[in-house]
Structure formats: C-alpha cells, structure tokens
C-alpha cells in the first residue's frame, strides 16, 4: 500500500488517478483476416478509454464480437495492442508486461484446468509458477481451498468436478498469488443460478479484501447485481460508461407503458409531441412505451392529452428502465438477442 498523504481539496482528482488500478487511453487492436482470398483488416478495438479505481468491480458489457475479449486479452498481456496506452496496477502494460503479470490474476472463460491432476496440485503449481517455494505454495493452496470451500474436493482429479466446483477452482487459481487486479472473462457463463450466486459471493468477498475486479459479461442481471460501474462496448468503441443506476437514468428517468386499443399512429405521434416525453416506442403487446425524465410529472400530462383527444386506453404501467433498455438505447440491439 502506498501511504496516503493528506492532500488539499483542489488536488482530489489527482488523488483519484493515484488510486487508478486500470487506466486505458486510446487502446487499439485490429486483425487481418482472409476473406475470399483478400486480406481484410478488422478493427476489433478502436481506441478506447477506461478508468477503474482500486476496490471496484468493473463490468465490461457487450454483444459477442464487440471487442470485449480482445480488450481483456490486451489488458492481461496475452496479445499486444496496436496502439494506445494502458497502466495496470501502476505498471505500464506495453513497457513491462512481465511486471504486469506479477500483479494481475486472469481467469479465462473456459478456465484451464488439467483433467488428470487434482485441484490442489493445480493450485500448488500455479503458486510455484508465480515464484513461490514449495512450502509457501502448499500453504497458499490449502488456504485457497478452504476459502473457496473446496477442501472436500482437493484430492480429486479436476475431471470429476461439477461446473460450479471447477469455476471456483479457476477463480482460486486466478487469485492464488494475491493479485492487485483480477480479470474474469464471463465468470458465470453456463453456470446454474445457484452456482452463479455462489460465484458472485466469492467475487464480492475478494473485493472486500481490497482486490480490484474487472469482469466481462453478457448477463445484464450480473452487471446490475455485481458491478459498481460498467462500460458498454459495441463495434470496438465504448458507447456508455457509469454506474448501473447512472446509465439507467441517463437514457431516461422512467418508462411509462400505456395500453392502447388499437395502437393508432396518430396517438403515438400525439404522445411523442408532448414536451415531457423524450422518446416513444411501440411494443408488440399493444403497449406504447414512453421514455420520460420523471414519471410523476409526466403521467398527469399523458392522461390529459389522451383525454383531450378522446383516446380509449387500458392499463398504465410504470417501469424502471433496465440495463437492457440502456443497451438497446446505446447499441440499437437488445443484448438478449445476441
């Protein structure tokens, strides 16, 4: 830990940068792919900026092929960026990738355990690959096994583990050397709800111990429940960044659903022209979806307008926008479709 000197109020932003565990500026990566005998360059990541502070759980969301995994693989030293800069745990990614590797943990989506060996053997080897001696490695492995509630399975071969057990071994492997920053690629993909909740608890526990956690996910409920802040990447660019609540507010304060029979274009246009309505959508269930800054102010005006035009309407529902609404508004697609 670096000592925190009392700083004058004017230097607060500087203090924050000092606590920045992942700082990314203009990071770029393109691939050349052969397509019908022609070599085509594909911009996977087009100059992104990110900032993650100490002790945050930061969620990186995006549909498949948006540049999520490419970004994570650059930040974990697995592939070299084409341009831009990044600082991980205070170390320059491009100048000292070896030093970055000492300070980060990485858990790939597919894990990476060997079927023929036991969970404990994997943990001991991982610790030794991080430079620990045998005794120290064994001590750490046993501590990790008990922390992740794996002691019971420690001596069993990895091939015999269930999905949830294997995932916990993967995460234990990623944190065996007590990294400053932990990268998790889709940590709960293909897990049942119980195992997922379990993994969330483990991640929260790591954060409580001061670890900074960067996760990619395409589960919106995961991002909402687990992450302090999120960024949405689409076509290689960051299209939104903030806390889940900020993002939900940003697209619009609230969503008012009005049931109409029939959903006449005239009525939709009428509602869209109201000053309190920022956006109108129709659903295929006979509802009109109105994005409004403040539902409390908007609803009376909506009712008055409908009455004035003598339009029949059914139910009125109030919805808080979900992260999927944010996603839809920012990328034009629902994440659930991808």
């Amino acid at each position, binding site marked *: 830990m*670096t000592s925190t000197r009392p700083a004058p109020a004017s230097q607060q932003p500087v203090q924050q940068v000092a606590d920045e565990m992942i700082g990314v500026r203009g990071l770029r990566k393109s691939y050349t792919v052969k397509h019908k005998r022609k070599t085509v360059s594909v911009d996977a990541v087009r100059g992104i900026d990110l900032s993650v502070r100490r002790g945050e759980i930061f969620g990186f969301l995006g549909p498949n092929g948006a540049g999520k995994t490419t970004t994570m*693989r650059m930040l*974990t*030293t*697995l*592939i070299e960026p084409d341009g831009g800069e990044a600082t991980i745990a*205070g*170390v320059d990614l491009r100048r*000292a990738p*070896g*030093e970055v*590797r*000492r300070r*980060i*943990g*990485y858990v*790939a989506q*597919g*894990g*990476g*355990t*060997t079927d*023929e*060996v036991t969970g404990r*053997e994997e943990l001991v*080897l*991982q610790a*030794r*690959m*991080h*430079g*620990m*001696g045998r005794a120290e490695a064994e001590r750490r492995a046993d501590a990790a096994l008990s922390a992740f509630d794996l002691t019971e399975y420690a001596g069993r*071969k990895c091939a015999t583990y269930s999905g949830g057990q294997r995932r916990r071994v993967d995460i234990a*492997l990623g944190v065996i050397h007590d990294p400053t920053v932990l990268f998790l690629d889709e940590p709960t993909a293909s897990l049942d709800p119980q195992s997922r909740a379990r993994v969330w608890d483990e991640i929260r526990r790591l954060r409580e111990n001061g670890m900074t956690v960067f996760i990619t996910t395409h589960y919106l409920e995961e991002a909402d429940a687990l992450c302090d802040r999120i960024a949405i990447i689409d076509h290689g660019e960051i299209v939104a960044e903030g806390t889940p609540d900020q993002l939900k507010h940003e697209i619009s304060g609230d969503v008012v659903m009005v049931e109409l029979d029939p959903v006449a274009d005239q009525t939709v246009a009428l509602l869209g022209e109201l000053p309190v309505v920022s956006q109108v959508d129709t659903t295929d269930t006979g509802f009109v979806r109105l994005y409004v800054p403040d539902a409390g102010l908007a609803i009376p005006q909506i009712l008055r307008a409908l009455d004035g035009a003598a339009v029949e309407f059914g139910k009125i529902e109030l919805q808080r926008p979900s992260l999927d609404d944010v996603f839809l508004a920012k990328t034009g697609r629902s994440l659930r479709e991808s």
Partner: protein
Amino acid sequence: MTAVAAGPVAVRRQPDASPTKFLRETWLVFARQMLIVRRTPIRLVIGIAQPIAYLLLFAPLLKPALASVGARTTADAYRIYVPGLLVILVLLSSLFTGFSLLAELRAGIIERARVTPVSRFALLLGRALSEVATLMGQALLITVLAIPFGLSVRIGPLLLAYVLLIVMGLLAASLSYAIALLIKSPAALGPLINTFAQPLALLSGVLLPLTLAPHWLIAVARWNPFYWSTNATRALFGGSVSDPAVWKGMLLMVVLLVPVMWWSVRLFAKRVR
C-alpha cells in the same frame, strides 16, 4: 525468495531472464507434464506397442535379409535394426507432439500459464523435455527387450546414442511445435505431418540401411539431416565412437536444434492468442 530493494515502486524485482529462474520454471513445467504421463499410462502402452511388435515380429527376419550388408549373426542384424527402430520411435512420436500442444492451447492450460511471469521458452522446453524423457524410457525398454535376441552393445557408445536420440527428439518436437503453431488446426496437422514424416523416416534408412539403396536414393537422402543422425546412431550401436559418422550426425543435430528451437519459441511468443 531473494531480498528485494525496498522502494516505493519496486518495478523489476527479479530480472526476467535469470538462468536459475529459467531452469526452475522449465523443471516445473517438465514435472507437471511427467505427472500427467504417469496418470495416463495407456498413452505409454499405445506409444510402445508398435515398436515392440516390430521388434518381436519383424526383426527375426533380418539376419538373412541383412546378410548383404555384413550381418553374419542375429546380433549383427539387431545392431543394425534396433537403432533404426529407436530413431523411428523418437522421430515420429516427437513430430506428432504438436498435437498435444494444440490440445493444451485449446483447453486454456497454456493461456493460464502465460499470464504468470513464467518464461515462454520454459513453457515450451519443459513440454518438449517431458516428451523426450518419456521416449527415452521407451527406448530403454526396447533396448533391454532386444538383448535376449542377441543384441549386444557397449555401455559408453550406447549412452552417447541416447544423447543423440534426445537431441533428435528435441529437434523434431520443436519442429512439430512450430508447424502446429503455424497451422493451428489439429485436423490439418495430422495429414501434413504424416506427409513429410514418412518420407523423412524412410530417407533416414530407419528400416534398412541406405547402403543397400541405389545411388540416386542415397543422393536424395544426403539432404535429410536425420539420415546423418541415423547413421551416427547405428555406428554407436556398432560400438565405434570414432566413426566419422558419429561426430557428423551429432554436430548436424545440435547445429539444427538451435535455430529450430528459437523459431518455435518465437512463434509461440508471437502467434499464440
């Protein structure tokens, strides 16, 4: 752990390329791979079944067949045939080891190791060494099994022959890693390696010495490095360390091993994604 200089940000606590760090990491990777070999004995059985079948079912035919190259006794015939058999074993198994690299890449095992400070060279060399160590165990078994048939060898030249086989194995394994990293598809790797492994083995004279071959075939074989190393292995099984074939084969293997290994490590560092 060694003492570190105390400082606010002690970047580069350990040099990234110290020889002890490298040896230690190579050993870690080697020991892990050997553990997997011990846990899957079936792979050893499959690997050695074919050479043993050749030793038991084919080699007895050789005394009359090899009479023209000076084999007067069964012992002579085995002295000519067994080294060839060991070269096939080492060459073909090592050339196919790229498969296991691709499998481990696919399973994410290597990726996990690449996000640790472990040297990339150690990740590759530890694997190649475990492959070669397994092969040497099999080679020893074949040698011992050939003794009741009349094979007699002197221990000094035999050990030197094993050293030569180790270098050949490392060379072939590095070559296989490099090709696997270029091709990246297990489905394409098999046919490709088969295509050049078979002629490479035949052109080394592993089944019958190429002294029996017509001139044009020998002329072609002289371009095959493994022809020279096979001749060297035979000379060593014949007990003559001073035969010029020995130093020629040895030197050629070592001289080739360095750039091929460097090439495969480079590809491993650059190409793996």
